[in-house]
């Protein structure tokens, strides 16, 4: 595996008599302080994250609560629950809805926070910066139930503020929340709105780490601020942008259950029903754990493939996660 590459850089020249293993161990011994640091975290991961992972086999079993995970009978055929999912008349629609909504959110969820962070970083008026930063951070704390209430007040077809304006201006009211034409935009828009300031935080932190002498040098060279943003700020946060993007790719098949579940209605299922909402209606409400687990596993495997692939590409730019 790739891990081997990093065994070698131990700086000392290795006498020929030593085997590879010995030298690896020796190198590791030099890093013992680091391993001790890692220990508590690794123990945590083993106990709380890895130990429960045997639970994924539910996807291949007829899970019975009484018999437990290990004791339940195997599904016959082993892919039975995957098949049930695949054979749903809505399978293709669910998958394409999930991918589309998720891709929109990926694009719209990535760039606006970066832009806001750059603008905040460039803002020379302290109070404005502080106020805007705090204001845009606040929507993150509103749950979807509340945001749904706000959306209704704004976009409801009867009595929504926007539609009142439209009608008063002589137009006809628009069914923003019940029409397949607008619903995805509402989903993406409300999510971008909710996370604009919250998403910018991490980029701001990254910008704080940029060496200020770079800006000073550029200023001496007479570079415009736009140029500095392009040549110093953005490259300075490049690694964090890539990191976040790669990690988000891993969740490409999560299009945002909480949000959609609260906002959708029967008239927009066509464009809004996603894997998770379907699993919820089919699996959890009917106590079908195995089905839910199978879909979860499917999503995870796709996510893993995407992350591995993206990391490989990122590595070419020297920004791989590992």
């Amino acid at each position, binding site marked *: 595996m790739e891990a081997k590459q990093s065994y070698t850089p131990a700086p000392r020249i290795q006498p020929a008599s030593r085997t590879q293993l010995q030298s690896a161990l020796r190198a590791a011994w030099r890093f013992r302080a680091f391993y001790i640091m890692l220990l508590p975290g690794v123990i945590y991961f083993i106990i709380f994250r890895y130990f429960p992972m045997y639970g994924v086999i539910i996807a291949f079993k007829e899970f019975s609560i*009484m018999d437990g995970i290990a004791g339940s009978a195997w599904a016959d055929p082993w892919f039975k629950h995957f098949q049930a999912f695949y054979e749903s008349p809505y399978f293709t629609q669910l998958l394409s809805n999930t991918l589309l909504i998720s891709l929109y959110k990926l694009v719209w969820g990535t760039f606006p926070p970066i832009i806001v962070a750059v603008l905040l970083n460039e803002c020379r008026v302290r109070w404005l910066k502080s106020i805007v930063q705090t204001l845009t951070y606040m929507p993150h704390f509103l749950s979807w139930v509340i945001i749904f209430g706000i959306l209704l007040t704004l976009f409801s077809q009867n009595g929504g503020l926007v539609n009142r304006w439209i009608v008063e201006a002589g137009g006809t009211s628009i069914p923003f929340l019940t029409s397949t034409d607008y619903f995805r935009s509402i989903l993406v828009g409300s999510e971008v709105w909710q996370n604009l300031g919250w998403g910018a935080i991490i980029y701001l932190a990254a910008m704080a780490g940029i060496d200020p002498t770079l800006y000073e040098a550029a200023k001496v060279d007479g570079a415009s601020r736009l140029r500095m943003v392009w040549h110093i700020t953005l490259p300075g946060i490049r690694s964090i942008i890539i990191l976040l993007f790669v990690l988000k790719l891993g969740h490409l098949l999560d299009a945002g259950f909480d949000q959609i579940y609260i906002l959708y209605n*029967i008239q927009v*299922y066509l464009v809004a029903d996603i894997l998770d909402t379907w699993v919820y209606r089919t699996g959890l409400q009917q106590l079908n754990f195995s089905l839910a687990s199978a879909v979860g596993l499917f999503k995870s495997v796709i996510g893993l493939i995407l992350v591995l692939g993206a990391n490989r590409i990122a590595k070419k730019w020297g920004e791989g996660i590992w």
Partner: protein
Amino acid sequence: MKKMNSVLLTVSLLAALLAGCAGGNNNPANTSNAPSDTAAPSNDGPEKTGEASGKQIKLEIIETGNNLPAPDKDIIKQELDKALNIDLNLTVYPSGDDYKNQLNVRMASGNFPDLFMVDRQQLIQFSKQGLLLDLTPYLDKLQQTVDFIGEESVKKGTVDGKVFAVSKSPQIPYQTYWIRKDWLDKLQLPVPATIEELAKTAEAFTTGDPDGNGKPDTFGLTGGKLNAFAPVFGAFGVGMPGNFYEKDGAIVNALYDPAMKDALTFIQQMVATGSVDPELLANSGLQHSEKAIKGQAGIVYLDWPNLTKEQMVEQIKTVNPNAEWLQIAPPSGPAGQNDGTWDIGATPGRYAIPKALEKDPEKLQRVFDLLNYISNPDGGSMLVQFGVKDTHYTLENGVPKMTDKASEVGYSWLYQFTGRPEMEYLQAKFALQSEYIKFASEQPRIESLGGFIDNPEGYNPADADRYIEEEFAKFIYNKRPISEYDAFIGTLESTMNYKALLDSASEQLKALGYGG
């Protein structure tokens, strides 16, 4: 490993310190094995040592609900504890989903509550997996409870002839059409008595500016999704889409009822006039009642509490002091009058006891004691209905009357595990709404049988329901002509396996003696 243990030890010590009463048990739970093997029910915390009075037993109960106060302010709990020498620990979950998840993990881990709410689906699954205590042999010990809930309710907790749950005594219907009397007066319209008049009134409410503000900002009818039309379906003698009911001695599914197309056509025409809430099918929670109170809609299909309780009346009057809501009988149609359907197989709640409790007869007896006590009109039934006598209610000629302190125990319904005598209870508790309560309960309704039917294997109700709802939306909004109704049924049978449900349902209902 040693290090880890000591870390864990420190951690749990700290936990105990911080939490004060942290009662987490430290028995190394036998994780993957059958939960019934873990002999000692693992959920009893540290025994209360304070009271000297022998064996106080801790009972844990979980259910859905809300607004339960903290134990030290929970008068009902304290009274029950005193009466039965128990330490009752009730936990309620406001979201049904959270509750379901909680119950499932606890069942899976053998950490059983002593009494818990189950829905029909859970009742079937858990009982088939041997997790629930078969109450049949104990019924004589539960005589008081059985008398209280009635034989019909006992049946509702039965799976394959065995009683696995205690069902609450049945509810009564709350919903009717409500109409703005002041709007009718302003437009000089009579109270609609037929569905044609209903449609005309709705249209007049939309175009006739009934609120007199000069703006076209009102509409006729709203309600929670298709329920808004429940009495209209009823007027055609049709149940709500998907309902099963008896008609002329045979079992019918509403989708196959020949009158369904007529009902749909009528509704479609009514919607086409623009007199129905355009977001009808998106109304979740209480959005429709809000629209009614706001003065947007003039007719609403709603339960009496949401228009007549003091809090609501106050809101209505703040919005418009002249607003007057009138409760009306279902408008008549080709098949007479029916205020929608009423599921006679449904129950407001079922409670089950884990099989593991079998091994702890003393505790089991206390659970029975509790159920019997709250079912005893001379015992705790009054307590969980109305609170403490002479504090929260007084008895006048045997009729309970609420005092002004009654609101202190507004949550007491959370302890009504066996239900309550619905009509008497509501009459006492909601004296001001007494007329509305009677009116709603007396309206004729189609008796639907859905509560008796369990879904067969190979039928995915989630997909079928979605398909039915989606296509109905299309029919109603004229996005699909009703002439294609038969094609819709065809797809439902071929793609959604609806036939499986139909066959299984009629079999199950016949076994119960329905459909001749």
